[in-house]
């Protein structure tokens, strides 16, 4: 019997096979770090008198609580400033490369590494952040880990892990016009639920996936964690190689050929069997928007807020009741009748160049609706920001009445000042609609950049086709 992509990558990193219920010891090619989940790991290392095993397999940036305005001025938030200065000191003390705020390579940890060409097929990549799954778009095994594990990887360049189960999500056929990567992943999570991928590595497969760009593939793998999966992967192909070629840390010359030869072997064998398989017909999809407070609570944009009574499962029913009350909605309300206050375009899910291009193409020649309080456009990395400016996208956003911000996580999780107030409602291209995620009492509707841009024009949730 053949093996899956995930099993191949796993096998190529096996340092030691676990026995008697002990996990496998897996070699880690690259660890990405940021200011929030690293200080206690460095502290642990220091207390134990240990050193990083390979500093050239670590890289850090500043993203979670960096401001997206006034980056040339002192940070007024003392606790954030302390975390950032702690990271700077730790990187200096231990010799870890840091791309700090203000540097052209700074950005959301899952956006800056691919841009540098550090994310490559067949690697194991970890980071103290659940959205590490993003890097699986390159055919890497990319796993979000906790701070103790960050310390463990620094000290040993390995991680103890139980083998994951495998799950195939097939998106068959051709996507209808106007349906994007974000809609695919929101539809998947709505179908399988927030625990549907638990313990599994999801491999996204099928015609519709093969046709996606790298930016779009990253959007899909990014939200694997929202389906409960440990990682998401897409087999590398010409699209992947094309994206990587010429990037600063991509292999060159003879090494490039050798690498491509290996990368081409990284695919699931025809006779491999997945532990679980889900198939979605692309033709059935349309733009998706969430109505509730977990990413699985999503519907087609043409749909309505569900009636909690329609859920057979008691737990789901009470979760829906609670979510609808929190969101200030009513069962049966049309999604397209929901007016929003704020539009957020950004994050490691949808803050890449392609996302900004799509949003700008829709906003061009329009102005935000009167009821829209603000439109924040936050590029995921500084290189993305520079390229967008080169293409004149910043001017389109500003003419539209949007704010063009510096790169960072920003309103995706509201650790910096980019927050909403209680009962403020957003359409957001980010990844989580949890209670209070974007500010205490805030209400979040997750959607694609196209839907967010169209909503900013009309003031109520809609897709570009509705304009």
């Amino acid at each position, binding site marked *: 019997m053949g093996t899956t992509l995930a099993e191949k990558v796993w096998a*190529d990193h096996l*340092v*030691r096979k*676990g026995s*008697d*219920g002990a996990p496998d010891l897996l*070699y880690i*090619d*690259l660890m990405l770090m940021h200011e929030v*989940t690293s*200080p*206690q790991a460095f*502290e*642990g290392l220091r207390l*134990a008198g*240990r050193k990083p095993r390979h500093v*050239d*397999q*670590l890289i850090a940036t500043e993203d*979670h*609580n960096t401001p*997206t305005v*006034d980056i040339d*001025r002192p940070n007024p938030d003392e*606790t954030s400033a302390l*975390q950032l200065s*702690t990271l700077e000191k730790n990187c200096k003390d231990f010799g870890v490369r840091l791309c700090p705020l203000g*540097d*052209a390579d700074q950005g959301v940890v899952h956006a800056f590494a691919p841009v540098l*060409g*550090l994310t*490559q097929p067949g690697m194991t990549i970890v980071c103290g*952040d*659940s959205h590490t799954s993003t890097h699986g778009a390159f055919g890497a095994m990319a796993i979000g880990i*906790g701070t103790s*594990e960050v310390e*463990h990887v620094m*000290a*040993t*360049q*390995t991680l103890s892990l139980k083998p994951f189960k495998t799950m195939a999500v097939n998106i068959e056929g051709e996507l209808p016009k106007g349906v994007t990567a974000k809609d695919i992943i929101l539809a998947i999570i709505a179908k399988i639920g927030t*625990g549907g991928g*638990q313990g599994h590595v999801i491999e996204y497969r099928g015609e519709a996936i093969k046709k996606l760009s790298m930016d779009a593939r990253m959007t899909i793998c990014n939200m694997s964690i929202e389906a*409960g999966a*440990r990682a998401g992967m897409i087999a590398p192909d010409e699209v992947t190689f094309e994206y990587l070629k010429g990037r600063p*840390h991509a292999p060159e010359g003879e090494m*490039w050929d*050798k690498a491509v030869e*290996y990368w081409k072997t990284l695919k699931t064998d025809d006779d491999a069997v997945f532990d679980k398989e889900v198939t979605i017909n692309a033709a059935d999809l349309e733009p998706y928007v969430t109505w509730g407070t977990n990413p699985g609570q999503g519907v087609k944009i043409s749909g309505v807020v569900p009636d909690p009574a329609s859920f057979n499962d008691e*737990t789901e029913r009470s*979760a829906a009741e609670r979510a609808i009350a929190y969101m200030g909605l009513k069962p049966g309300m049309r999604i397209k009748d929901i*007016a929003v206050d704020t539009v957020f375009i950004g994050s490691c899910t949808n803050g890449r160049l392609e996302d900004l291009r799509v949003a700008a193409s829709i906003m061009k020649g329009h102005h935000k609706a009167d009821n829209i309080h603000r439109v924040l456009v936050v590029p995921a990395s500084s290189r993305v920001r520079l390229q967008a400016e080169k293409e004149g996208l910043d001017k389109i956003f500003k003419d539209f009445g949007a*704010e063009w911000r510096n790169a960072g996580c920003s309103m995706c999780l509201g*650790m910096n000042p980019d927050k909403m*107030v209680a009962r*403020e409602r957003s359409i957001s291209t980010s990844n*989580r609609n949890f*209670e*209070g*995620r974007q500010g205490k009492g805030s209400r979040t509707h997750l959607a694609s950049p196209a839907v967010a841009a169209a909503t900013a024009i009309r003031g109520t949730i809609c897709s570009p086709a509705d304009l």
Partner: protein
Amino acid sequence: MEKLTTLTGVAVPLRRSNVDTDQIIPAVFLKRVKKTGFDDALFYAWRRDPEFVLNKPEYQHGKILVAGPDFGIGSSREHAVWALHDYGFRVVISSRFADIFYGNTAKNGVLAAIMPQESVELLWKLLDEEPGREMTVSLEDRTVTCGDVTLPFEVNDYTRWRLMNGYDDIDLTLQHEDDIIAYEKMRAEKFPFKPKTLPVKREPEQPIESAREGEYPDWQGPLADR
């Protein structure tokens, strides 16, 4: 790490499913740089509600949390486990845990005990009948005892062994350093193209213009409040 074998303490019923780590500890507390002192942050938003279970006097010294399914979903923040631990919880019981959260528990001496939802419901019922009662969790026997009811829970052998001995992860791994060295030798030969972050390779540095905050003097607050 402290050893965990048998624990007797107040059990707290948390009748909610999909308790995400943003609820366990909001992002604002992630700005701290130390590993302890997160007890005040646990369930921060919910604890503003006087009716929330932890605000009831009988549950204030809870050591065992009995929660609904899909506990610990969302963000990977290990702070969620530190907050539970700092508050006093050493055991969380649920029918299903999110993977990252589950992995983080054992590393911090906290047991995530898996039980069928029917058992959780039964414990909830027993706790409702006598709020503030103590339960006993035996890692040795893999059981939870509440009054005269004893229920089994699931925990894998390895996690159980680690918790009972209080072993640190790094020590365990470095017992196999020879294997790591052997792997690294093979890696250098077979995968010489794997990237290194140093020496630095990059496109030329370019100045990043600083954005300024927009001003909204006429904003009348959320539409929902108007």
